[in-house]
């Protein structure tokens, strides 16, 4: 009969998938069951196009306590403290309704972290928009920043970092990737397990309403056709005040010892939280939708099971100790109720009172989801002869000012100034002051560093190298503040995976990211895939966003990017750039969209990072800043602008092949450090021990940035002029 009514289409499934469900159940699914399958087998929840590729990523390491598959990854930082962290996308909701889309993205990633028993201590946001001159882009950008500000500030978790890139490729599909970091005592680490027959399944937090039904299946797992505004009812509305109460109540409930497992309710709501927790524990579960407290009357069981109402958590509590948990939530003025029980067997059973409405094998919803080997068209990376100098007669000073004023490179202060980046009193290095944020870990001497990095432009030219470059840049950023890179979470943003070109890019990006993470000893502990970032057949750049965390054993020994003292010597760790491939200079100044994306030299990245970290730990380094977007000239300019009084520098690169490439090229494995003259030698000795190229290229001082090579002066600009270009770029 279903031939007349393609019911699978209503829930975002294909006919083939429907047939699999029929044969698994041995009967046709009823409407509720089909809706539950539709959600769990959606691309967003099942990773059906990406699973086999993600399985190739390195996920193990001596510090990894929890790899992929849980609410968040966890690494051990010693002294019984662990760091939980994860990144997630909220792209589609933010395209439809930027303020609430971004705000609820923050809410969702926070819940992933405190579900692990960790207190959230930091947020970072990686954002992509179209051309900022476009009024619609400005609306999206303004809405997203306000939404992050509203939710993050109210909930009391500091936003300490992130990045924003503007590129026409994201005009219709902005990206909002949000990373959260939490701290947890190792023995308090909690997992999303519904274990132990008879244990109580408790729903806590906000009441369940009709919002967000089919968010995961129909909004997040399809491309946009027409006006995304039509999808607005599928976007949820956030309540950061309730989330704050939920954080405190959950952490307090965990202290009592009656809690077996915790899971957040995000995409796919109750359906996902119940099936995932049961699946991880190998249990069955029954729940009764009649016991779910609701915010509106007349909701059907289907709506209850599919709702994506925000600020809800699922708690599994020991049988007989339910009241202890309910009492904690009551004290925080939150609703909580036992809605079901863990049971033996393999079924997730949904009741409405006495009546059984659904009965599905748990594993069928989770691990039984389709696993597609979608055909991919191997990309042909753009790898022309490396462009040198571009045959242009360029005024390097003017080029530098143009780069600094570009929206991608301009000061982020207008954005970060709207985020509370200090609440919690752990922020040692605030956003914008260094290549990564640094937080102290109270009760220890330690600190953690965190960063997000992504380079969709490079990935569009060369997906594999672009992905490698993104990991390498994150690695270098963590080293530049003095921290040891520990592990990676990632958000993979792509177009429609059913398009061979997109799938081909995806495969290459995952391969490049895996290679980089293996070579740099930064295992992947989790992440998120966001496909279908596509409108009317036009897809975004392949955009892997890397979230990386690092460890400082002594947080007081860290570095920031700004010059500190007149007379300090400027040392370049690493070699000179030799070409302008895939650089901001070629794109912004020369107007050439071309490669090659520089390959990553892992050996060089490792020694440069190591010398930088050792120098900082030994107290030799006054400032450190990596060389990346805009090349050496932009890095020097930023260090000057970030100095307390606009200190310039005089730099002589000596004998170099091509000055413009040396100034603006973006080959990796380079960090600029400054040292007081008395200690430069010690740093150079360290570099010598590790066979790391290093040389003194100049001296901090004066009010101008002057860069020359031998007898010729290539650039001389007052720091004031640099600052005014840089500070106005985002206005």
């Amino acid at each position, binding site marked *: 009969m279903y031939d007349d009514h393609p019911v699978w289409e209503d829930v975002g499934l294909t006919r083939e998938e429907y047939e699999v469900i029929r044969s698994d159940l041995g009967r046709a699914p009823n409407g509720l069951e089909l809706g539950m399958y539709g959600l769990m087998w959606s691309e967003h929840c099942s990773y059906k196009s990406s699973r086999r590729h993600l399985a190739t990523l390195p996920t193990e390491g001596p510090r990894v306590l929890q790899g992929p598959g849980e609410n968040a990854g966890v690494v051990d930082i010693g002294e019984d403290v662990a760091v939980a962290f994860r990144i997630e996308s909220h792209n589609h909701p933010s395209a439809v309704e930027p303020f609430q889309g971004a705000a609820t993205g923050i809410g969702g990633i926070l819940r992933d972290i405190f579900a692990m028993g960790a207190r959230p201590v930091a947020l970072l946001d990686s954002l992509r928009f179209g051309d900022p001159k476009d009024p619609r882009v400005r609306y999206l950008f303004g809405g997203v920043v306000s939404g992050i*500000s509203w939710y993050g*500030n*109210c*909930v*009391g978790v500091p936003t300490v970092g992130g990045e924003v890139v503007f590129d026409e490729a994201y005009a219709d599909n902005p990206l909002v990737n949000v990373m959260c970091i939490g701290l947890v005592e190792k023995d308090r680490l909690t997992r999303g397990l519904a274990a132990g027959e008879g244990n109580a399944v408790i729903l806590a937090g906000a009441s369940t309403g009709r919002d967000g039904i089919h968010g995961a299946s129909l909004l997040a797992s399809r491309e946009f056709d027409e006006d995304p505004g039509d999808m607005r009812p599928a976007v949820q509305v956030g*309540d*950061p*005040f*309730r989330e*704050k*109460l939920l954080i405190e109540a959950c952490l307090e409930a965990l202290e009592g010892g009656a809690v077996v497992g915790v899971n957040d309710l995000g995409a796919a709501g109750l359906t996902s939280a119940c099936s995932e927790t049961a699946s991880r524990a190998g249990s069955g579960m029954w729940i009764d939708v009649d016991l779910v407290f609701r915010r509106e009357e007349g909701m059907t069981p289907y709506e209850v099971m599919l709702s994506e109402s925000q600020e809800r958590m699922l708690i599994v509590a020991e049988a007989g100790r339910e009241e202890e948990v309910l009492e904690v939530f009551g004290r*925080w*003025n939150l609703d909580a109720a036992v809605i079901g029980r863990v049971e033996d067997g393999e079924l997730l059973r949904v009741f409405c009172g006495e009546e059984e409405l659904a009965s599905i094998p748990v594993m069928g919803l989770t691990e039984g989801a389709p696993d597609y080997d979608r055909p991919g068209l191997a990309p042909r990376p753009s790898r022309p002869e490396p462009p040198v100098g571009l045959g242009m007669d360029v005024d390097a000073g003017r080029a530098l000012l143009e780069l600094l004023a570009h929206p991608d490179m301009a000061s982020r202060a207008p954005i*970060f*100034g*709207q*985020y*509370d*980046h*200090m*609440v*919690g*009193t752990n*922020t*040692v290095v605030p956003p914008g002051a260094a290549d990564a944020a640094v937080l*102290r870990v*109270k009760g220890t001497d330690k600190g953690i560093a965190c960063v997000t990095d992504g380079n969709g432009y490079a990935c569009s030219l060369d997906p594999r190298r672009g992905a490698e470059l993104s990991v390498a840049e994150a690695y270098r950023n963590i080293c530049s503040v003095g921290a040891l890179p520990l592990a990676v979470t990632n958000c993979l943003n792509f177009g429609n995976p059913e398009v061979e070109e997109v799938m081909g890019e995806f495969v290459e990006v995952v391969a490049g990211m895996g290679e980089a993470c293996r070579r740099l000893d930064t295992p992947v502990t989790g992440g998120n895939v966001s496909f279908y970032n596509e409108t009317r057949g036009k897809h975004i750049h392949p955009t892997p966003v890397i979230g990386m965390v690092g460890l400082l054993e002594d*947080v*007081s020994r860290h570095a920031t990017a700004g010059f500190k003292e007149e007379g300090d010597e400027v040392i370049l760790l690493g070699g000179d750039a030799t070409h302008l491939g895939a650089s901001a200079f070629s794109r912004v100044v020369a107007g050439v969209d071309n490669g090659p994306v520089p390959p990553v030299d892992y050996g060089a990245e490792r020694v440069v990072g190591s010398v930088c970290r050792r120098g900082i730990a030994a107290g030799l380094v006054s400032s450190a800043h990596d060389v990346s977007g805009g090349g050496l000239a932009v890095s020097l300019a930023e260090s000057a602008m970030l100095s307390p009084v606009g200190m310039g520098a005089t730099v002589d690169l000596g004998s170099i092949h091509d000055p413009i490439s040396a100034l603006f090229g973006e080959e990796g494995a380079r960090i600029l450090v400054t040292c007081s003259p008395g200690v430069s030698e010690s740093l150079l000795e360290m570099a010598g021990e590790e066979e790391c190229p290093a040389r003194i290229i100049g001296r901090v001082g004066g009010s101008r940035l002057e860069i020359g090579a031998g007898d010729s002066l290539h650039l001389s600009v007052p720091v004031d002029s640099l600052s005014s270009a840089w500070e106005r770029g985002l206005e």
Partner: protein
Amino acid sequence: MRFGVVRFYGSNCDRDCYHVVSRVLHRPVRYVAHDESSLDDVDCVILPGGFSYGDYLRAGAMAARTRIMAAVEEFAAAGNPVIGICNGFQVLCEAGLLPGALMVNDGLRFICRPSLVRVEDNETPFTSGLQPGAVMSLPIAHQWGNYRPPPDGFRGRIVLRYSADDGSVTPESNPNGSWQNVAAIANARGNVLGMMPHPERSSESILGGEDGLGFFSSVVSWWEGGTSYV
């Protein structure tokens, strides 16, 4: 001397204040719940920053009507020291323990950054150890910090004003449009202080500055010096 840090639903600087008192000042401190009715066991009350009740309705409006605020009023009436920081300042104004109101910032946006303030009055328990005219760097983080006095005249004390680094009080140094560049005020008696900047965020050198510690250490010296009432 024992401190009490009041926790409303939605307070989020409570733990930060607690940390400074216990770990930096090394003084006894306890959390005071919004529904408690006695402050007999504490000597100084801190109303911390955050978003009590989500700032829904109006910043501080609902917190001002909780049970603990009746006790705070009584505590303050007896001359005991009370400090409200950021949202705590908003709560004190809403509760009528301080004159005036905090309106939305001139730029309408949330602002989080360091600010410079000049000490105007060191005859309050919280500023007794500070030098009048001294310029301090304290972080601000608020959207509703634009102080307005009551329409019938200001009858309190101006304790801090936003200033330039040389101490001059200029329009450019005013981050939010506050009347008279006000960053902190006290009641006429001086024992109830409200301030928008966050002293607990700059009480340790690892966080970039210790100027904020002076407010806490002042009240400790003032109390331990034996002056228990203003």
